[in-house]
């Protein structure tokens, strides 16, 4: 039975091509790997190699033919012992049937695929808004607050009568790591200066003494390398905490964070994922200028597969870091150098955790919703205090987690206050605030009495000069001005 040689697809996008030249002629013997023809695709001239051996029995498409569709039979190959008579009886036989039907199968599959994907993207019942909410679910995890939890206040997370102690963010983070390392032998911390130096910002102080060099690992200055090594260690069953001296240096490692850590669970069809925490100070410190002063919240929040946490208080820093270490997914844990020294009240509990993906109402109010996170909260809280003196009661929401984002809490608040201002230190374009504004537009459009305003870092690299740096960052005044604009005061 002669074998059909089909017009091959020679690139991911090729649908047809020109049969430029027949290198072999009828009667020529062909070995596997021999070039039999040249084909011009949309990209290049390619040589077609024979897969099987035999004799070229018949040419079905002449050289010079243009627009030959992929999978069209272009020639017949006679197997050992076959002669031309087989061409008559064999053409259209099993071989042809098989390949032709295979080709039909492909087009059928593709058609049904188009239909299916059309279905998937069609709004259910024609309600685009509902459909979009439905599609958000997987990306936002399953840790949404109870819809009835209208308060969502910190007080509800802490059992009544719990003793509170004053702790710095720095100590809270250290305690979180120490507690989790005591709890789980697979947890270890690695990074630059985390062990003998006791941490560039003293976040890992004391850990080497307690856990030893096996579990508190000083790395060379090699961000891309140790981020990838951490991913491999997580694949191997460990639970790494990878400290970046600052997240600015994680730019060197961002390929491993996104392509290797965030995507593996999906690319592996759920077989294996990457339980890892990447943590360190993020955003502007003081006078360290453009390359050391960037907020990465929006960057990482763009990526499905990552969780992104940016706490403000010590209680959240501790509770969220413990949750991050236990989480089976890669978590980006964004800290802030300026906040490290701030003290907050923190519950004295043996195992204090805060769920990832849940916002906290930091201050209740009725006139405007201010949404912020991390160090942005310092502006938001001060602005709210100032505004209260003028009779404007702002509700301040601390997102705590940027991804999955607790938009339910934000939307509930906006439906009450009808106005929203977002505050962050990152750049304004494609910012966290921009995302919140677009979601409010979709989910609470009819409740808005004013446009959502964003207060963000200025759209410039961070300058060094003290006066310019101050101008580049958000300010309490900018938050107050934005609130007054959306409440139509002044």
């Amino acid at each position, binding site marked *: 039975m002669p074998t059909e040689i089909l017009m091959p697809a020679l690139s991911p996008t090729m649908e047809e091509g020109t049969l430029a030249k027949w290198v072999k002629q009828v009667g020529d013997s062909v070995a596997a790997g021999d*070039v039999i023809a040249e084909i011009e695709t949309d990209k290049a001239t390619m040589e077609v190699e024979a897969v099987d051996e035999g004799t070229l029995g018949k040419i079905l498409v002449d050289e010079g033919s243009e627009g030959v569709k992929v999978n069209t039979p272009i020639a017949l190959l006679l197997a050992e012992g076959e002669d031309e008579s087989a061409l008559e009886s064999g053409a259209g036989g099993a071989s042809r049937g098989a390949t032709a039907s295979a080709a039909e199968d*492909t087009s059928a599959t593709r058609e049904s695929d188009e239909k299916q994907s059309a279905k998937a993207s069609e709004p259910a019942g024609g309600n685009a808004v509902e459909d979009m909410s439905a599609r958000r679910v997987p990306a936002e995890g399953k840790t949404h607050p109870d819809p009835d939890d209208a308060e969502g206040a910190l007080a509800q997370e802490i059992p009544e009568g719990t003793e509170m102690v004053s702790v710095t963010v720095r100590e809270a983070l250290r305690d979180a790591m120490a507690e989790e390392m005591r709890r789980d032998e697979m947890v270890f911390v690695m990074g630059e200066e985390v062990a003998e130096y006791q941490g560039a910002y003293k976040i890992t102080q004391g850990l080497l003494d307690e856990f030893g060099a096996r579990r508190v690992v000083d790395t060379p200055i*090699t961000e891309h*390398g*140790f981020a*990838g090594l951490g991913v*491999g260690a997580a694949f191997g069953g460990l639970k790494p905490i990878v400290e970046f001296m600052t997240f600015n240096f994680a730019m060197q490692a961002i390929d491993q964070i996104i392509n290797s850590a965030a995507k593996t669970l999906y*690319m592996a069809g759920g077989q*294996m994922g990457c339980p890892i925490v990447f943590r360190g100070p993020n955003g502007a410190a003081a006078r360290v200028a453009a390359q050391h002063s960037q907020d990465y919240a929006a960057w990482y929040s763009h990526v499905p*597969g990552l969780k992104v946490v940016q706490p403000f208080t010590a209680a959240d820093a501790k509770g969220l870091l413990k949750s991050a270490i236990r989480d089976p997914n890669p978590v980006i844990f964004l800290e802030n150098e300026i906040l490290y020294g701030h003290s907050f009240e923190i519950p004295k509990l043996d195992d204090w955790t805060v769920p990832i993906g849940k916002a906290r109402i930091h201050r209740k109010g009725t006139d405007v919703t201010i949404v912020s996170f991390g160090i942005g909260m310092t502006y938001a809280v001060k602005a709210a205090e100032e505004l209260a003196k003028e009779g404007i009661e702002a509700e301040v929401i601390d997102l705590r987690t940027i991804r999955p984002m607790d938009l339910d809490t934000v939307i509930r608040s906006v439906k009450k206050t009808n106005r929203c201002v977002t505050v962050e230190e990152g750049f304004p374009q494609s910012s966290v605030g921009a995302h919140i504004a677009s979601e409010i537009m979709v989910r609470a459009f009819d409740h808005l009495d004013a446009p959502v305003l964003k207060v963000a870092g200025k759209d410039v690299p961070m300058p060094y000069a003290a006066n310019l740096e101050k101008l580049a960052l958000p300010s309490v005044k900018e938050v107050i001005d934005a609130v007054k604009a959306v409440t139509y005061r002044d």
Partner: protein
Amino acid sequence: MAARSRKSGAGAPSTEKGGTAKAGSAHEIVKTLEHFDAPAPAKFSRDEDVRAYRDMLLIRRFEEKAGQLYGMGFIGGFCHLYIGQEAVVVGMQMAMKEGDEVVTGYRDHGHMLATGMEARGVMAELTGRRSGYSKGKGGSMHMFSKEKKFFGGHGIVGAQVPIGTGLAFSNKYNGTDAIAITYFGDGAANQGQVYESFNMASLWKLPVVYVIENNRYAMGTSVSRASAETNFSHRGVSFKIPGFQVDGMDVRAVKAAGDLAAEHCRSGDGPIILEMMTYRYRGHSMSDPAKYRTRDEVQKMRSESDPIEQVKKRLVSDHGMSEDDVKAVDKEVRDVVADAADFAQNDPEPDVSELWTDIYAEAVPQAAE
């Protein structure tokens, strides 16, 4: 012992190298490897040659079939075939123990088959179907099998090198004697993260075997046009990592090198580099017109150094197998591949609901232990 004269070694895979390095432990041999010579090829029993033949032929036939299915439109996107390089993964696999891990780049079908992953599951992943190893969501370049200790399947050139180093880190952390076989090509060998990994692996004495598959072309750029030092086995010198060149077309030479490397790693002496001198017959990917080399060059490699033909000859001449015995193996392999191809063409595409699954793993309930 193994002290021999320096060989510059780059270029065509040599057929004979070394030959005296059989005595002594891996530790002793590697310590004296200042001249970076490979051990003599292993002596294969009939069973070993049959296994090598079958395993390499399975990869060859599988890849030919994948090429056909690509041409027919069943496989989309990028598809990088391993044809020509089969002796590398098969020889290394023969030197490995249960529990050892494998990680590689995107030319990965051969590695998966060698680790024992099912041909059906790999082919169905290539066709993007639901019974593929990644439910059709990973494709040719992104496949994993936790069960077979195959950790990808990585599409970013060089990214697998720190990952393999991390697997070795976890082995050492847990005190197991498993080793991580980390494959990458001559192209990836010029990525910075490779050297970041070398440094940490050597510093911390991690049990990782770096297998550089030098197939002479990084996509369309020949080694000499891309690499200042074309002897990749020397690339570990600055990190005190020993290495040597191996005839990657001879599965026995690969096995011997793999044995030595495995023993070196397991004994706690840290990483080692094996540069496999190999060759890919096909283009970089399916859409590569391969104008950077001559057809004669390819045909010469095929006719003179083919890894499968070498073993096939031995089966008949050294092990007294008949043509029919050999053909029986051929048929067995063809049947496996035909079955895989048939399965992969008829398996349904993933359910549309799969678009939204496997993005996040469920958090384990936070009960105190």
